[in-house]
């Protein structure tokens, strides 16, 4: 646990609450998927919540986020409302992207959330550009760029790492290493499985952190962001984590054993943090129940909002294909 994170009651309660909100939101998504109200792909973050929650604590509202197609966690932790998220999942025009993006393509101007990128590693060049554009306009911001271990296989990862380091761009690279790119195990895909060592090849400072430990993630992210803010150039964070559920909704999981999943579940970010807090008297059981109840209520409201949402008229199908002006 990092000394840099102040583990006062409010803060630990906040961290736990954020992770629970994400977990419960996604449980509802599964229900709605089974009811065929959410369609297409649905990539759950179950097991990885500590990563997005920890990293977001290190960012301010001026900063930017670029995420992947498994981005419900980032979206919620960044502060995008569950109502517009759920409406987006249901394909309603009240959704944050007017129902055009869906689960994999969450964008939000207010929170500087630049996707929801469903091409593996495709978000990295984008993040470089966001950081470059901010820097050229004198904005003192950090762009946090999330990607999985699969992205490390891609050329765009290496091109972007090099360019960010070469131009000393204010980017926090966050690798969510959950050991599998869909069904492809890391050791079957990478000659060098020590991902953080790839950052060293670009002379980029990098650390490995236990991605199942929200406080450790927050501490590491705060350190990295501080380095970036004082002009230290891009930083790399490898968060070792695990996805408890299928890659998407249809996945026989032939590539890993039930035992492996069970072993990781015991190390789960919520069960572990919650247990530690209760044991150490930092939070009471009844507080946890209240957090859960509040999350449930928030989700019910979001679902009600989404269900009551409307379908965009088909006549507007081509709207936004080209823009009339750059949004202010």
């Amino acid at each position, binding site marked *: 646990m990092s000394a840099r994170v102040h583990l006062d009651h409010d803060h630990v309660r906040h961290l736990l609450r954020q992770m629970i909100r994400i977990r419960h939101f996604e449980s509802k998504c599964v229900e709605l998927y089974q009811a065929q109200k959410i369609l297409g792909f649905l990539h759950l973050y179950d097991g990885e919540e500590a990563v997005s929650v920890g990293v977001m604590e290190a960012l301010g509202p001026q900063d930017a986020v670029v995420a992947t197609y498994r981005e419900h966690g980032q979206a919620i932790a960044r502060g995008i409302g569950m109502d517009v998220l759920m409406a987006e999942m249901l394909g309603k025009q009240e959704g944050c992207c007017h129902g055009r993006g869906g689960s994999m393509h969450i964008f939000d101007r207010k929170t500087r959330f630049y996707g929801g990128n469903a091409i593996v590693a495709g978000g990295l*060049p984008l993040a470089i550009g966001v*950081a470059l554009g901010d820097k050229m306009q004198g904005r003192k911001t950090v762009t946090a760029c999330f990607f999985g271990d699969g992205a490390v296989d891609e050329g765009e990862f290496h091109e972007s790492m090099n360019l960010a380091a070469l131009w000393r761009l204010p980017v926090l690279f966050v690798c969510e290493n959950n050991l599998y790119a869909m069904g492809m195990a890391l050791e079957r895909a990478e000659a060098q499985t020590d991902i953080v060592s790839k950052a060293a090849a670009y002379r980029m400072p990098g650390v490995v952190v236990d991605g199942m430990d929200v406080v450790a993630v927050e501490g590491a992210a705060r350190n990295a962001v501080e380095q970036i803010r004082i002009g230290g150039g891009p930083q790399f964070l490898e968060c070792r984590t695990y996805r408890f559920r299928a890659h998407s909704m249809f996945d026989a999981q032939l590539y890993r054993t039930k035992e492996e999943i069970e072993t990781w579940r015991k190390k789960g970010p919520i069960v572990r943090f919650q247990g530690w807090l209760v044991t150490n008297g930092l939070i009471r059981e009844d507080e946890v129940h209240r957090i859960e109840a509040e999350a449930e209520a928030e989700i019910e409201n979001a679902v009600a909002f989404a269900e009551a949402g409307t379908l965009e008229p088909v006549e507007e199908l081509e709207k*936004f294909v080209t823009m009339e002006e750059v949004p202010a």
Partner: protein
Amino acid sequence: MSASTQITYREACRQGLRDALLNDPKTFLMGEDIGRYGGCYAVTKGLLDEFGEERVRDTPLSESAYVGAGIGAALVGMRPIVEIMTVNFSLLALDQIINNAATIPHMSGGQFAVPLVIRIATGGGRRVAAQHSHSLEGWYAHIPGLRILAPAVLEDARFMLAAALADPNPVLIFEHVMLYNIEGELDPAVTSVDIAHAKVRRQGTDVTVIAYGNGLFKALTAADTMATEGIEAEVIDLRVLRPLDTATLLASVAKTRRCVIVDEGWRSGSLAAEIGMRIAEQAFFDLDAPLRRVCGREVPMPYAAHLEDAALPQPADIAAAARGLVRPA
């Protein structure tokens, strides 16, 4: 005609870039060897000295990263102008151009625009074979969300960029490599051009020839030849490959009742096919003869000069196609 008004296509492009950098502090250039080297085709020569490394950025050979960086910078308020040396290299950035630049405005429900300009050298004729010579602009014209421009004349080389920068959407400008050395007089009265319309470059009554880029000059040469035979061809410079200005094409065809489409791209699935189909759909009863296409031959571009010439549409091919419509055997 004073010597000072003479200008090359290359210099016209350069002046357009210089204007952009002077007029808007949010514009900057990014690409391979555009700075110290002066540009693969010397278009950006001198701009690094004038504007500095911050605004004339030499990039590593990372097409995907720097095109993506242009998209990201555009998302947050900059007006990047990215150069890709040749259209074959743009394939290395295809993910960013198609999956991001062309989709983000729509996919984000209109929350973001991507006001990015990408300049790409295109086309054959320089004996540089199959990895530097293709004409893939027709391919890009397939993609919703992009505007595709093909400046052929000096005015367009000089002023299309400003219009492209004023567009809130990603714009790809394809500069044909055989045009950079073309020299002519730039009309001082022209200070801007539109990027919405095709233009009739030569009036005629007997047959419409639609072309763009270097093909325009081949079509004009063919028209001169035909004129000596008493055939008056109307030559249209397409200029904007997406969205197509179908109205200008239909108006000409309604007058001439015959049409030849010139396209350096491969025939199968070509832009010429799209244009021909639109005319067939919308002007079938105006036609007195079948539609004809003069396209690139369906081979990877060969190196040997006689083979490359044979692979590209030539004025004689265009004249033969048009003549065949006006005076069938």
